[in-house]
């Protein structure tokens, strides 16, 4: 196997790496680039813990080859806060106690960010179906949905 050279953009920065042809983007992020905020829960696209945004669409990075990132733009949890300022979703997740163990949290935040960028005022049902690919075993989803609703309100400039 010969390594493949990849030039891509991650969280707005130009990044170059070498990866094996069968290596997933998730493994590249975690093992080669130290971006371990993206989690692996299943490796088969069933849990959403490895959610990242690729060219504006949320994807499971375990189902993307590292080689496919060539020329693309990738967003991970590490790029969600603007410097020291948390994204409203990040703040609302903490405020609403929307995490317990927290292993699914980066994936939920990435998926919810993609949702609110596409749909700033989603219904509860829309939130629930959009996030159906992100498994959480601790919370029963109640507080997660409320956090997303509250973040959406704030991002739309409405009072809580």
């Amino acid at each position: 196997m010969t390594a493949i050279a990849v030039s891509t953009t991650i969280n707005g920065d130009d990044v170059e790496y070498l990866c094996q042809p069968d290596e997933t983007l998730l493994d590249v992020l975690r093992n080669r680039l130290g971006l371990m905020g993206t989690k692996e829960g299943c490796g088969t696209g069933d849990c959403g813990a490895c959610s990242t945004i690729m060219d504006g669409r949320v994807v499971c990075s375990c189902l993307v080859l590292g080689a496919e990132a060539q020329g693309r733009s990738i967003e991970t949890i590490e790029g969600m806060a603007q410097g020291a300022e948390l994204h409203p979703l990040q703040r609302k997740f903490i405020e609403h106690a929307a995490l317990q163990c927290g292993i699914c949290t980066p994936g939920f935040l990435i998926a919810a960010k993609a949702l609110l960028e596409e749909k700033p005022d989603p219904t509860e049902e829309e939130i629930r179906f959009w996030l159906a690919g992100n498994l959480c075993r601790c919370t029963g989803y109640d507080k997660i949905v409320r956090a997303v609703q509250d973040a959406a309100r704030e991002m739309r400039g409405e009072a809580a």
Partner: protein
Amino acid sequence: MRYERPETITDATALLENAPDRAFVLAGGTDLLVRMQNDDFEAELVVDIKSIAGMTEISETQDAFVVGAGVPCAALSENAALVAAWPGVVEAANLIGSTQIQGRCTMAGNLCNASPAADSVPALVAAGAQVRIAGPSGLRTAAVEDVPQSPGKTSLKKGEFIEAIELAKPGPRSGDAYLRFIPRTEMDIAVVGVGVRLVLDDAGVVTSARIALGAVGPKVLLVKEAADAVIGTGLDDAALDALATACSDAATPIDDKRGTVEFRKEVAGVLARRAARIAYTRAGGSQ
């Protein structure tokens, strides 16, 4: 394993034609990468077709929508004209996996994976969709139902891959629908799937029907008896009963971890009835 990203169809077919046995086409990767996780799966060559011009686009001709093989299913619902023309097909494609899967998975991949439970396939078959197959000896077209042969097997020959799926623009008073049964509300593989396409006359009588079943046989089933049961009717209760019976009878499912034979046969009829009603309403009929 070798990873290749050809930029032309010719290069892609050449790669595939000259490839070792274990060569795979990569479109959305949502099936292929899952298989690659398995220790027993070895790929020698993966050909990523998404850099070929047009592969990730939905285009329109005078008569048809042409959906490139690399178009993620999420993009289908963003195409208003396609949604208006083939709501059942788009809904079916949008049922595959999660939001994350939608960002990557493709109808062509769903078809070529040749799972009998593929959600988009019964809807495409009901719609009478065609596939454009690129190969070493040029382009050919085939009906969608002729592609899958048995679980995991397609009729594609060495060197061939699906370049696009063509959906004819529907005439007036026609409608389609797809329903599937899953134990949860999301994230499951279909236990039963039913695609229905109906064309009505001005009086609301069904003049043409195509009804396809998924997950109840080794491959998608186009059920002529089910179509016959509704053609010439206004989709009254008797017609719906006959339709349900025809679908239940046509189903030849297996018992597995997702459902029983009895359950699948029964629910095939239930869903056919429900999907037919939706298609009928979409075609402008009123019951």
